[in-house]
Each structure stands twice: as C-alpha cells, then as structure tokens.
C-alpha cells in the first residue's frame, strides 16, 4: 500500500490527538511528569546566562572574590541539576515512547485476533503490517518526543520573557520584537521542509520499485532489447528524485540563515540599545551580556515549536489509520450471553463446552460476500456424523465458501448452520474452532520446531502424543531422518521444509487434538507425485471416524469419500460415491478423466511440479 502518497495538506487536527491520548490515558501521569521535568530543565537553561551576569557584575567588575566559592558551587549545582534533568527526561521520554508503541501494538494485535475473515479479505496484510509497525512507532515517537519539545519550548519562552522583563523591559521588547517574524518564517519553512521531504520519499519508493522491476524483469528486458529505453525511463525518475532532493536541501539551506538573520536583528538591537543604556548607567554589563545571550538563542525554541506542530500534522495520517484499525468492529461476534457461558477466544471456558458428535446441517443457507458477490442461494446439505464429504468443482463455484461457513469464518447471510442440531451462533466460535481439524493445501507453519507446530492444536500435548500424531500421518519417517528430529526449526513460514513435509506436519497438527470435524481445504493444485503419495496416506489416516469435508482439486485424493458433491454456481449438481459418479459419466467423470490424462503426461515428461492452471 502506498500510504506515503496520501494527501497531507490537512490542518492540524487536535481532536484526533486528544482521541489518541484518550486511548493512551494510562500514560497521563507520565506525560505530566515529562512536562514538569522539561519546565525544570528550561529553568536551568534560562538561568545560565543569569549566572554569567552574576559572575560579571558581582565578581569581575567589582574586582573582589568574596563569596566566589559559593558562586562556583551554585554554578556546579546548576550543571548537575541540568545534567540530571536531561538524563531523566531522555529516560522518561524513551520509556514513554516504548510503552506507547507497545500498548498500541498489543491492542492492535488483540483486535486483529478478533476480526473476522471479511476484514482480512479486503485488507492486505502489508497494510496491517504498516499500521502495526511503522505507524505505531510514529505515534509513540511524535507524542513522546514531540511533547518534550513542546513543553520545553513553551517553558523556556515564558521563563526567558519573565526574566527579561524583570531585568529591563526596554531590552526585553527589543528581543521580543522579532518573535512574530520568527514564528511566521519558522512555521512556513517547517511545513515546506516536511512537504519537500515527502516528495523525496515518494520518488525514493518509486526508484526502489524500478530497481525491483529492473532486476526481476531483467531477463524479459533482454529478450525485448529494452535496455536503453528502460534506462531512459529510470534516468528520468532518478533525475526527478535528484531535483526533489536538491530542492528539499535548498529549502533547509535557506531556512536556517533566514532565522539566524532575524535573530541577529534582535542581537543588534540589544547591542545598540543596551550600549546606550549602559552609557546612561541604567543597566549593568552583566545584564547587557544576559540580553545578548538570550537574543542569540531565542530563535531556537520558536523553531522547535514550529517543527513540533508540523510533525504532529504529518503524523496525523498514521494516527488516523491506526485508530481505524483499533476501532474496527468484527463481523462475527458471539452474543454476550454466549460468551458468558462458553467464553471467548482470549478467555475460553472449555469446562462448559458440550461434546461434538459431528452431525452438520446447512439449512436454507444464503451467503454473499461483502463485495456483493452472491455465492450461495438456498443451500441445503445434511451430513451425518462421521461421514466423509468431498466438494469438487471449478474455481469460484463456492466450495471454499461452504467450508468457510462450516468453520464459521463467515456466517450465513440468512439461514442456519446446525451442528448436532444446534445453530452454531448459539455457541461460541472458540468452541467450534477448538473441535476442528483443519488443513490447507498450502500449509502454513509458524516459526519454531516441528514439535511446536504439531502441538499448536493441543498446547498441552506430551511428546508421546506429538510423536503419535506424526506417526499416524506417517510424518515420522521424514522427521526421524532430520538431524534434530522433532526439535528441527522449520524456519519462517516453515520455509526450511519442503511443501510436502510442511503438509504432513500440518496434518499431524490437525489430528493431535482428535477433532470431530475435519476440513481439508485445497487451495491450488500444484503438487508433485511424491508429495501426493505421502498425502494420500495421511488423508486416509486422518479421515478415519471423523466428519470430514475435503475441497479437492486432486481428485485422486477423494476416491474413498462417502459422498462427492460436484458444486457449480453454488449448487450441488451431482452427488454420489466415486463409482456412482464415474458410471454416471457426467461432470465428475469429465473432470476426473481430464485430470488423469494431465497426470499421466506429466509423469512421463517428468515435469511433475509444474503448476497447471485451470481455465485461464
């Protein structure tokens, strides 16, 4: 998702930040602490020039060192106090930032566990990742460190103004006279700087994209002899990037000199007016030096303030998107009274769960996706406990939908799904899902060992149970051959195992909890014969004695099913056992014999892992 390209010209939205702080109200005390600390720090920062005034007026000009040790002690104490403040504010701000980011991520993750599939259907994983990683970080960063600057800048401006008026109101006015111009210039430029950097980032991500394409498409480029033209296009892009970067640097390079020059007007004014005042003996040299120092430095807090505002503004989009994630409501929620009895996904109450026999009834089920696409109309199906059902048919026929409804990943738009005679919305999701055995054709494993992965479905399983499950699906053969056996790390997403091995582990995982209902949802058809052989054995072992649904592309895997349903346009067009349907020579027969031919041909040509896409 290129969220970078969003429109940022919006004004600062205070309400949004108040709302975000509302969510993070647990940090209220820490933020107040920060404010106090920054005020204390601003105090020391404002006091140093006053200390040098003392040094000049009381000692250097008087020519006496009476009480000088006291002065040095006071100075040292101020330094230590300042250093302590700095240490503490960085500690606290860092802590606050980390804790906020942690909290946003924690809540986001918990929320994500609750959201239903309809959310995941329309939200790319990359989008969610960005919210949970960079956006969360950005919010923590801006709130913690932005408020530091804000508190400090406000405090120091007030303190310096007070001290100045206390010392001499005329010189104070000299210094303050440049304030409005400084503020205007700073706000304008900070905004320009942010904007110009955004342009740079945009081109930068385009350039990364261009490299990506250049590298992945290099072979095609060669065959098309497109090198020169591609290069020209790239050079155009890199030129835009260069221009934008130089522009961004130029904006920054203009900004600071202007601010400093404005500041020097104040210095000049103080020098002049102060000189006159000294000539009339109205102020001391020490006071003179205090004002000069203040005049030189005062542009800094104003600059900080301007930057803080534009940073809050630019982080606004991150805030909005993250709030949107945290505020999302799940489509499938258990009724409170259901949660009361059976618990929810985070706090299940398995002691109240009725045992499942495995009888499943789809009663007058209608279903359409959020996108409006109708999939099932008046779908009816009764499955006896222990029956093995296979669903076959073309992509988009509705096979996966039926299974998803069964698993309650979606709920029927109307109609009911009954399990053992009870509408499943009267029970909690976690109850059903804890009784499911579920295998995807492209198996998903988690980082960790093989044993961890098998144990996923039954966290308290003993090693014996894990091994038994593996043995049942004949995964033990390959596992025992591995150097570390069950303790082998599978890598990210299971990447260190072959597809077939991953599949077997996922089968072992599916049966370890001895589920009553079993679902095998084949997503694609790319699979090699070696894997197929292994999986066939596993499937047979797994289906034994369970109500099972198999969504199949590989028709050879379902021959032993009790009932095969051929689905087309959300309707059952043929049903029966393999033999019955073959004899019937209908849809199933065609599907089966075509696939058989493909397989034979591939076998001869040895091109076994080749994906065959149906119906391009």
């Amino acid at each position: 998702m290129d969220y970078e390209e969003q429109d940022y010209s919006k004004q600062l939205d205070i309400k949004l930040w108040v709302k975000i702080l509302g969510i993070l109200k647990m940090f209220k005390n820490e933020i107040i602490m920060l404010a106090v600390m920054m005020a204390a720090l601003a105090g020391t920062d404002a006091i140093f020039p006053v200390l040098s005034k003392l040094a000049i007026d009381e000692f250097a000009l008087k020519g006496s060192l009476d009480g000088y040790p006291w002065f040095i002690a006071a100075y040292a104490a101020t330094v230590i106090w300042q250093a302590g403040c700095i240490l503490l504010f960085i500690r606290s701000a860092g802590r606050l930032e980390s804790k906020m980011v942690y909290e946003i991520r924690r809540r986001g993750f918990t929320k994500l566990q609750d959201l239903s599939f309809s959310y995941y259907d329309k939200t790319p994983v990359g989008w969610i990742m960005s919210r949970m990683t960079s956006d969360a970080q950005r919010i923590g960063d801006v709130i913690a460190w932005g408020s530091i600057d804000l508190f400090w800048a406000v405090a120091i401006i007030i303190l310096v103004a007070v001290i100045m008026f206390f010392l001499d109101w005329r010189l104070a006015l000299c210094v303050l006279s440049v304030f409005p111009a400084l503020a205007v210039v700073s706000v304008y430029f900070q905004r320009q700087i942010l904007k110009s950097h955004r342009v740079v980032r945009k081109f930068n991500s385009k350039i990364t994209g261009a490299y990506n394409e250049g590298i992945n498409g290099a072979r095609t480029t060669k065959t098309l002899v497109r090198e020169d033209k591609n290069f020209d296009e790239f050079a155009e892009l890199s030129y835009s990037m260069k221009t934008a970067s130089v522009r961004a640097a130029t904006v920054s390079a203009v900004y600071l000199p202007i601010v400093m020059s404005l500041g020097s007007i104040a210095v000049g004014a103080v020098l002049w007016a102060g000189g006159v005042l000294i000539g009339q003996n109205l102020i001391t040299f020490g006071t003179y030096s205090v004002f000069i120092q203040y005049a030189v430095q005062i542009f800094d807090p104003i600059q900080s303030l301007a930057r803080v505002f534009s940073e809050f503004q630019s982080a606004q989009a991150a805030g909005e998107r993250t709030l949107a994630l945290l505020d999302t409501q799940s489509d499938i929620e258990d009724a409170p009274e259901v949660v009361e009895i059976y618990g929810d996904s985070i706090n299940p109450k398995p002691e109240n769960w009725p045992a499942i026999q495995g009888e499943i009834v789809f009663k007058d089920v209608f279903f359409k996706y959020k996108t409006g696409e109708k999939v099932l109309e008046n779908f009816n199906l009764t499955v006896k406990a222990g029956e093995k059902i296979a669903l076959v048919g073309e992509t988009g026929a509705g096979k996966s939908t039926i299974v998803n409804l069964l698993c309650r990943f979606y709920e029927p738009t109307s109609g009911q799904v009954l399990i053992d005679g009870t509408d499943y919305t009267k029970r909690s999701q976690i109850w059903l899902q804890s009784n499911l055995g579920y295998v995807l054709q492209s198996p998903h494993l988690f980082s960790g060992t093989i044993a961890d992965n098998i144990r996923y479905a039954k966290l308290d399983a003993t090693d014996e149970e894990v091994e038994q499950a593996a043995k049942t699906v004949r995964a033990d053969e390959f596992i025992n051959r591995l150097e570390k056996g069950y303790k082998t790390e599978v890598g990210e997403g299971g990447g260190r195992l072959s597809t077939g091995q991953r599949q077997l582990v996922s089968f072992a995982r599916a049966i370890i909890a001895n589920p009553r209902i079993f679902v095998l949802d084949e997503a694609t058809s790319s699979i090699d014969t070696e894997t197929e052989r292994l999986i066939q054995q596993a499937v047979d072992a797994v289906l034994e004695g369970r109500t099972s649904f198999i969504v199949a592309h590989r028709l050879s895997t379902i021959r032993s099913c009790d009932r095969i349903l051929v689905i087309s346009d959300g309707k059952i067009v043929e049903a029966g056992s393999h033999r019955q349907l073959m004899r019937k020579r209908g849809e199933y027969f065609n599907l089966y014999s075509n696939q058989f031919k493909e397989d034979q041909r591939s076998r001869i040509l040895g091109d076994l892992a080749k994906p065959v896409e149906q119906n391009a």
Partner: protein
Amino acid sequence: MLIFLSRSASRSLGAIKACWAFKGRKPGFSLQPTAFAKNAGAKGGKRLITLKRFIGFMEGKKKYFVGSIIMSSLAVLLSMVPPLIVKLVVDTILGKNPLEGPEALKRAIMGIGGIERLGEMLWICSLGILAATVLNGVCSFFKGRWTAQGAEDIAKRIKDDMYDRLQRMPYDYHVKAQTGDLIQRCTSDVETIRRFMASQMVEIFRILFIMVFSIIIMSSMSVKLTLVAVSLIPIVFAASLIVFKKVAKAFKETDEKEGELQTVLQENLSGVRVVKAFGRQAHEVLKFEEKNRDFRDLVIKLNNLMAWFWGLSDGICAMQIGAVLAVGVTLAISGEISLGTLMVFNTYTGMLIYPMRQLARIISELSRAGVSTVRVSEVLFAKLEEDMDGSEGVSLAGSIEFKNVDFWYDKGNPVLSGLSFKTEPGETIAILGGTGSGKSSLLHLLLRLYDLKSGEVFINGMELRTIKKKWLREKIGIVLQEPFLYSKTVMENIRMADSGASDGDIFESAKTACVHDVIKSFEKGYDTMVGEKGVTLSGGQKQRVAIARTLIKNSDILIFDDSLSAVDTETDSRIRAELRDRRKGVTTFIISQRITTLMEADRIFVMEKGKLSDSGTHEELIAREGLYSRIWSIQSMSGEDEKDLAEAL
C-alpha cells in the same frame, strides 16, 4: 554562551537511528556483507582501495565539495565575528579600553571618526553583527546547496550506473541473483554513500574549522584561558566515540528483536486461517506479547544508555563553560583579560565543545560508508554481458542449422550434447521434451542468452557469433515460460517490444493472442495497470499479453517457450490458428507438453537428455514407438476408452 539545544529532535533513538542505513533494510534480506566487504574495514590495503573507489564516485563533482568546504570555512569564520563585535563594544566603546585588533580595523574606525564617534553611532556595530550573520547565512546556504547538488548528482549517477549495469549483466546472473540483496545495494547502500557526502563529509570539515579558528582567536587573547577552554574536549570526544560504537551494535540487536516481532505478526496475519481454525487466538496473543515486551524492554535499555550519555556529556560541556567562566573571572579581576574577552571565551567555548559529540559520531560511522562503497562497487565492477561487433540489419529469415552443439551450465552436467538439426525457412517446429531435456536451453542459445560451448549454429547461413546480440534479440521474438509484465498499463506493456507501434497494431496483435476481449472487459480496458497497483492478471492472461507483446515486433523467428501452458486448450488452438494466418513465412518454435499444441507443426522434435531422440510429423511420430506416441495415447483417451481408464483407476 550556552547554546540552547533543541531538546529532543536529535536525541530520540529514532532520530539517531534515522542516520543509520539499517532503517530501510527489511528483515529477511541478507544482511551479510560479502567477504570482501567484511574485511574492508580491517585491512589497510583494502581501505585504500575503498577510499579510491569512494573518491572515484566523486569524479567530476569534486568542485561542489571543494566549493562547499570553502563556504563552510567562511561561514565558520563569519560566525566568529559577532562575539568580537560585542567585545569591541564592551571593552573599547563602553569600557574605554584601548582598541585592540588588526591595523585595518583600527584604520577603519579612525575613518569613521574614531572610537568616540563610533560610540555615538552604536548602530554601526549592530549593522556589523547583522551583516556578519547575513553573510554567514549566504555562505551556509551555498555550502548546503552545493553539497546537496554534488551529493545528489553523484547519487543519481551511481543509481543510473547500477540500473544500467544490472540490465546488462549476463542472463544467468539474473537467474542466480538474490533480488533482495541487490536491491539493498542499489538503495540503502547508495543512500549511505549519499548521506555521507551530503552531510557528514562537509560536517567534519566544519567542525575542524570551528576548532582551528576558535582556538587561534582565543589563544591570541589568552593562552591560559584557551587551555582551560579545550581541557575537556578529549574526554567528550573519546566518550562519544565509545558510546556511538556501542550504540551501533545495540541497534543491530534491536533490529533483530524488531524482526522477530514482525515475523510473529506476519505469520499470524498470513496464517489467520490456521489461528482461527484451531482457536489459538489466546496463544498468539501471548506469543506476540512476549516479543512485543522483549522489544520494548530492549529499546528502553538502549535509551537508558543514551540518557546517561546525553546527561553526562551535556554536564561535561556545561562544566567546560563553567570552568572558563570561573577561571576567566579571576583572570579578569587580575586584569589579565578584559570583560569583553571573557564574554568572547564564554561564547566560543560553547561553539567548540558541543559539536565534538557529532564529530565522534561521524567518525564512528565512517566504516559504514566504507562497507557500502564496497558493496556498491561490487555491482558496478561486475562483469557485463559482452556484445562484440557483429552484423546488424541482416535478415534472419532463412534456415537454422545446429551442428554438433554442446552446452552445459555446470561442467560435467551436459545439457545439450552433439545436437544437430536443420530447419527449412518458414518452418514451424514443435518441441516435446521432459524437464532437463534441454529444450529451453536450445532456444536460449539461439538468442545468445547463453553461449554454446562447442559446435556451430547458422542462421540464414550466418554463423551465430558473427551476428550482434542486440540484432539477434531484435529479430527473434521469444515468449518466456514465465513472462514478466512491467507495472505499466496493458497498452504500454505490449508496446514495449516496439515503441513505434500504433494502437491499431496493438489491438491487432492482442487479437491474435486472443486477449483483446479480455482486456476490453477490464474497467479501464487497455489503460488498466498491470500488477500491484492494478489488476492481477491470471497466469494465462499474462502469457497472452506477453504473446501479444512479442508479436508486435517484426520478428524473423518466433519462439514460444511453453508459453501457452496456462492457457486452456481451446484458446491455445485459437491462438495457434491466428498465428498461422498472420505469421506466414516466419520460422516458429513451439515448446509444449500438450500434444494438441504440437501436432499441427510442420515437424516435431522430441528431445531427451540433450539430444534429439526423434523428429517427424505427427503422423510419423504416432506411428512409431517412443515418448511422443506414449503421450499421444494418453492424450487421445476419450470416453470410449473406458476400459483403459477404469484400469488406470
């Protein structure tokens, strides 16, 4: 004078880290520097090479950097002026001390009418401060502008070179290339170099100038106080160097932890079905919680280290100023220095000590720029595909002859051995063969994507190696097995092969590839973007767009490398029929595993183990025992062959 330090901007870990190039690196990418890069920091000789490479990058742009270094020195010099003007006012004008300073200044003041007169016109001094600051600003502006100009020019040149080189690498470089690592070299490594040139390099000089100028001016006023003013610099510098080195290591650690956190998140999101199907939400929350907490605690730990560092080093810096003030006051009382001098010292000490940490930080990061230089150079100096002079503009329409051709990717693993055949002009040749039979390699040789190891190939009577590669690829149209479409519109994708093609030509070839109607059915038709930002085309659609793209140019030879595999049989035969009508007289090679795709060819080659095991027409081949007839018998099984099928079941 103390400098108010803006309190956060530079001190949050994020801000510090933004200067490390890690940030753009995604976990999962290889973070391993190559062996050369690893050693680059360690060995003197390698360092020298790295430095030479780095200077090589600046070729022709050095003037920008020389200019900005000069501007930087002027800016620093000008920034030293206002405190001196203050001194002049305090000591001479208001304090009535005799005028100190260079003759020119004295003469100038005499010119105005002497100190008395200047005292009446104090605004002249104010103007002096303003002028110095404005001039300082002008110099700073040019410094910033020129550094940016130079650094961005160089960055652009490196990026362009990288892109150009990558495209011109030999074909098999890209077969083996690790995309993630390459992209990192092109982006974050170039960025590290750019950043070094754009800020750090000139910044080093700026800080050195501050040191030199302020120490010179200060010691001209009081050597004793100057010694006090620099006494703590070594401590601040050394401590910063140590801390920043440590921080670099700690960032690596936090990056790893963050990577783990992201892995858990990523796996959870992509495995959401599994999580829900097993009702493992609570378990996942715990798992994430652990990583989330670990990461938080690690960051807090690192931040605490930084808190101590900033706190203590700020303390030391303030102490330095305090020491100057304390000693300065006693010197002022004893009359050794004037009040104005004390004020100048106070200011200069601040200007001098605070940037020391920055200097240490840049030095601690030098090795990073070195490693990046090496990594970038490795791409820039990699071997390119050579294209010797050869014939261009010749016609390739004619016979193609392979004579005893041998080819292998790895020695000892022959892919083609002693392959010989000859085609007639305009013939359509279909090739059937299993995985590793060498059928694709054979056609890759024709385009010289790879070079044959021994034997000869003649196209239209010309030895292959006498023809320029570019021309070969210009005149031989190939559709790869897994064609790549660019993230452009469908129209632009097809036009890629011939930028002069009219819309009509494009429709025409899309129709031939039987994809015109499909494209028309998209909401935006031919203006539909392909890929992430647009529609995701199915495998078959991609293949057909790629076919249309290849057809748009005027080829003498056409190659379809199993490029109809994802197209259904019916469309496949329609495409072939269209092709037959359109491409009369063009020698065509079709690789496929579908007999129906192959059978209508003029001749069919059967390839096994790098050799032509059989060839002939469909009728000839099915009449004899062999791979072709075996495949044919399966393919032609129909409902009537129920017995066979039943047996097979």
